[in-house]
């Protein structure tokens, strides 16, 4: 970075206001290099976040499975009633056999 430029913003201002073509090119490349340096940091940060996200999404997937399982289990009530109907049916058959005996 140029000695007089403390920040990317300063460098941009310097590069844009420079009238000397050679110096302007040098400042342009410095500005691009500064942005590249910032992009290197972004690269690492995004990599870290995506790894953290991976761990969190595994847990969320488990919660989704649990919610879906709970929805499936709602059918247990109707199944229990149907089982009761089967028991009554069976009882009728047994009662018929007993009466016929």
């Amino acid at each position, binding site marked *: 970075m140029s000695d007089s430029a403390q*920040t*990317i*913003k300063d460098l*941009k201002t310097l*590069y*844009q206001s420079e009238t000397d073509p050679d110096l*302007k*090119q040098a400042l*342009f490349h410095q*500005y*691009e290099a*500064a*942005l*590249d*340096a*910032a*992009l*290197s*940091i*972004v*690269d*690492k*940060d*995004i*990599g870290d*976040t*995506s790894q*953290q*996200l*991976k761990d*969190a*999404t595994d*847990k*969320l*997937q488990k*919660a*989704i499975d*649990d*919610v*879906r399982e*709970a*929805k499936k*289990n*709602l*059918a247990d*009530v*109707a*199944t229990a*009633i*149907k089982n*009761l*109907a*089967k028991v*009554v*049916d069976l009882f*009728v058959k047994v*009662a*018929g056999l*007993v*009466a016929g005996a």
Partner: protein
Amino acid sequence: MKKSAIFCGRSKKILEFTSCVLLSSILASCGLSNTQREAINTFTPAGSGLGDILSKQFVGARDSVIDLNTCLLTLYPDLIPAQPKLGRRLDRDHLDDALTSDRIAEFVKASDLIKTYSDAINALVSDSQQAELTDASKELTAAIRSYDSNKKLVSDDGLTAIGSAIVAGGTLLIEHKKFMALKEIVPKIDGVITDISTLISGELIVNNPDDVLTKKVKGGVFDEVNLTALKVTAAADNVLDDNKSSPPDRQIAAECRNKAVKAIDNVGSISKKLQKSVLDVATAHSKMATKLTNDSIDISDIRSFATKLKDLQPIIKAVSGGGLKVHL
């Protein structure tokens, strides 16, 4: 032993049993309260809608970076190295730079899972099992009629009432099951939803490039778009400012500059809205978790419960033959 004798011996027991099942269902069932439902109804559409939007934004950000780096490669080939350097992935074969397909897939997956989770909760809450309960009730009443074919124990009207009571009692039990499931799952996952929302929200901030460079802040996906677009803007300006640039080069530079400005405007204009939406969804989820954990019942829940009981009163009377009464 005659069949009729068996009927007489069991008659009261059947009616008592059905009445008891129904009343136990009503009294034991504690479904979702109105405020809990309200909290769920706030979270689920917000989570579902946001998931879609976020997925598109992350994929769009990657496309944008590829497009912008293609511009850079056209304008200043030297700015895109043939091989990766200085810790960056960017080279002529990897114009997506930090936004690799694997990383974007993680962001899209997280966004999609928020939608899937919201939709799964909505499906659970919306599932009343009415058709299944009605079928089961028909099977049971048919079995009772088969047992009491002479209609000595229960008339046709009484049997219809029993059928309705079974559906009503089953509905209350199902509401209770939903409540217990949500109470178990939602508070436990709340911290994870907060973490995911915070991580995603961080990717949607357009930070000051100097703050990124000095590591005052964590860089994210929108920073990648913004910084790449700043590079393209400078490169395009350089071509446009150079008197020696040919008209075709100028045209390419102007088009690239336009793309870069649009990319900067796009991330800038949606950044805050998206961040707010993500954090709003996390807040809505936390509220839902708190409501489910606190398990408080307010006056509207009591009114709603009383209304349910009132609706069931004639059925209960019919089933119990007037022996069991609910006073409201």
